[in-house]
């Protein structure tokens, strides 16, 4: 098991770049990619992300992992769009999906979660007087990044179980247990977080 969402240590300029600005760039890139629908522009964005990978030089195995996932998604989603809507829409969807997911993976490959959480907490500090709680948002970011890895792991084990039962590529043999296990995981995670005092911070503030 090797979750996608995990940091791969390195010394490239992308690794050394501060987490806060890097996160901002990622958000801008993802937003642009989602709102633009110009094929040439989107292809350019994909190229730019590819350059990012060349600079960061993550281990090949990790790049292959990301690429494989994107390929499967591209074929599946692209095929569906091609069939339902048409080639133009399919190209736009596939390119923006690939650019956004590849950029997000590049970010998690080159950034420690601890640094992301610290950056979010720092960046949102000024919003405290509007009732925003940066600690809570920092935790949210940490958990979200972790969730990518957890979901990948659940998907892998559900697929293995389906293969073992001879249900190979049946979509229901995958979807049903995947959803059930994901929900159960969310439920258990919620309880574990409560047991670790998440949500008790307000009481701390009241009692000092």
């Amino acid at each position, binding site marked *: 098991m090797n979750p996608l969402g995990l940091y791969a240590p390195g010394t490239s300029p992308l690794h050394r770049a501060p987490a806060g600005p890097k996160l901002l760039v990622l958000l801008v890139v993802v937003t642009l990619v989602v709102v633009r629908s110009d094929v040439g522009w989107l292809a350019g964005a994909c190229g730019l992300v590819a350059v990012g990978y060349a600079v960061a030089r993550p281990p090949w195995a990790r790049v292959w992992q990301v690429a494989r996932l994107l390929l499967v998604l591209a074929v599946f989603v692209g095929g569906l769009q091609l069939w339902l809507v048409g080639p133009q829409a399919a190209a736009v969807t596939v390119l923006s999906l690939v650019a956004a997911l590849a950029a997000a993976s590049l970010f998690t490959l080159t950034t420690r*979660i601890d640094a992301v959480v610290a950056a979010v907490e720092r960046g949102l500090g000024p919003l405290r007087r509007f009732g925003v709680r940066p600690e809570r948002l920092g935790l949210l970011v*940490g958990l979200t990044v972790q969730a990518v*890895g957890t979901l990948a*792991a659940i998907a892998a084990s559900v697929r293995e179980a389906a293969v073992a039962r001879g249900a190979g590529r049946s979509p229901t043999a995958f979807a049903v247990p995947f959803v059930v296990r994901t929900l159960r995981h969310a439920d258990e*995670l919620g309880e574990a977080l409560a047991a670790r005092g998440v949500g008790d911070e307000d009481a701390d503030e009241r009692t000092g």
Partner: protein
Amino acid sequence: MISYRAVSHRYDDRTVLDDVTLSLPEARVGFVGANGSGKSTLARMVNGLVRPTHGEVRVDGLDPTSDGAAVRRRVGFVFTNPDSQIVMPTAGEDVAFSLRRTVKDRAERAARAAEVLAAHGLEGYADHPAHQLSGGQKQLLALCGMLALDPDVLVCDEPTTLLDLRNTRRFADILAGLRQQVLLVTHDLDLLAGFDRVVVLDGGVVVADDAPGPAIRYYRELVG
């Protein structure tokens, strides 16, 4: 001290705990019973995860439902599945996460986390990706995440159910050495050998409450 007074619990209209009264001053208390007998429901009440529909639960005189934060500072909880309890990418960060409210300095937090790991069989694992640990190591990490807060009570709900024999032994050895009061829900009756008291549940009712020897004998007759 933990106590239950006339505690009943219902999910929809099914009664899963029926009039349970217990005072638990002993250092080591075990809970056994068939699947669905109400063990987890009873255990979860100790830190306010489940609120009894009738009766009251007290932890050092505090009510876990209204004084949840204060109770959770005294009570640590270890669940069955370690994967659901680990929230940060590395072992050290995960333990440090528990310390975020009490230790403000990041470096000091990391140092304290490494100490807790080293004291409980995970020396040198602070920078190790948490999800690459073995199942047994993950459960030790979950335990460390709780012990970092230095609680007075540790509630463990089937903590070894997903572990192999060797890791179960290791977990039990570490549990035995803790200064904390331990409430342990388990199907592994061997774990209860050195315990002070074992409570047997059946259909939401306490059917035996005794030293481990007689209580376990009763339980075996009940199921066999």
